[in-house]
């Protein structure tokens, strides 16, 4: 069986090239793969598209990627960067490179990509600004927006434990987007607190089957939301 474990952070994220699209897990701090993000920052990649729920406003994590000029495009449901006047957000926004997507639609678009579907109809955002430019359809008397799948070149996710096959379980509200992102990327990189032996995880409780995971990096427990930037 091919080994999925990355011994170093660079092993884990090194294949991410300039211009890649990254699905990054997390809802606020829980579930954000902070080590993997730091790894990408250290590689000094450029021109990245970041798809995530909310980039936050502390000087770390995804905000660090933006401030260090790595990001060309941001897709998210919630951002503080503009209001807080963080470096890099204004430029991204003025260039028309910030796309706001309703959170459920964001999740569902990635699920559609992971599930091999071509799109779906949602009642969310009908009649609002966020439906502008998108086709709508009426089915059985109700109006829907037609949304397209959203996939990423890479998914950077955070899980709790993995076994050697990459079967993952998560922890509390740190689960959030991570499972759906694991499915919606060409290459999924998971940051885990612990790796356990084969058969140590009860098959009934596995949330992300290893088929969706390409590599994992073990970090141990760490306090989330700390600014680790230089």
């Amino acid at each position: 069986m091919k080994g999925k474990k990355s011994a170093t952070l660079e092993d884990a994220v090194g294949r991410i090239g300039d211009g890649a699209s990254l699905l990054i897990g997390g809802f606020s701090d829980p579930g954000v793969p902070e080590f993997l993000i730091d790894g990408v920052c250290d590689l000094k990649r450029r021109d990245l598209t970041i798809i995530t729920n909310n980039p936050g406003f502390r000087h770390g994590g995804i905000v660090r990627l933006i401030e260090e000029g790595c990001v060309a495009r941001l897709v998210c449901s919630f951002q503080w960067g503009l209001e807080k006047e963080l470096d890099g957000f204004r430029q991204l926004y003025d260039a028309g490179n910030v796309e706001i997507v309703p959170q459920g639609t964001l999740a569902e678009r990635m699920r559609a990509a992971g599930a091999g579907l071509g799109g779906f109809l949602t009642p969310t955002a009908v009649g609002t600004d966020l439906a502008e430019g998108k086709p709508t359809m009426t089915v059985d008397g109700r109006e829907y927006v037609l949304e397209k799948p959203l996939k990423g070149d890479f998914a950077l996710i955070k899980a709790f434990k993995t076994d050697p096959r990459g079967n993952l379980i998560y922890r509390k509200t740190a689960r959030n987007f991570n499972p759906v992102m694991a499915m919606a990327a060409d290459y999924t990189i998971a940051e885990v607190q612990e790796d356990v032996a084969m058969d140590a995880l009860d098959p009934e409780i596995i949330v992300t089957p290893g088929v969706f995971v390409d590599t994992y990096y073990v970090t141990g427990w760490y306090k989330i939301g700390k600014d680790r930037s230089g």
Partner: protein
Amino acid sequence: MSEQTNLLTRQQIAARAAQDMEDGWLVNLGIGMPTMIPAFIPKDRDVMFHSENGLIGMGPPPAEGEADQDLISAGKELVTMISGGSYVHHTDSFAIARGGRLDCAVLGAFQVAVNGDLCNWRLPNQTSGSVGGAMDIAAGSKRVFAMMSHTARDGAAKIVAERTYPLTAMQVVTKIYTDMAVISVTPDGLILNEVAPGLTADEVQAVTDAPLNMDDVGTINVAA
């Protein structure tokens, strides 16, 4: 300045809204004022709270030493989970929100129109809004209640004949709780159900940009 002293506090609005959360409901609370509601739910009433980030059965804030960094609410505050709760990932969380499993969503609002249009995700002068789960939850819940100050900081009415702010969801609001009144939104127009103690129906109408039916107006029962 008699209107000022007769306005309800945020806790009092939350206490009033909590009275209308029915036994057995699954409820989603928007960030801000609605998050005060759980503390006022009567002890013998079973109401579960869904948090969009994948928590079914949101409980009160953790006690000293009990905080878990991985357990937060949609408002990004540390919380606990009640007995019988569960964790789900985001597509399941939003399947619940969009799929009609929320009996009620109590959301903050910038504007509510007579036809029930809800505006709460972006102000007109904001460069870019942050929608989060607002549109999904508003479009998918069985009921949407709005909870807000009756007027904006500049005194402008927030309950209007026709919305002027960016829309969150079309025609979803059925009840409004403010610091001045409780109002029902119906196909026949707005009905003024209750006013804050010390206020008159006319005072409420004066700061509401749409006609209020005042046939049967009670007084808000303000919890201690």
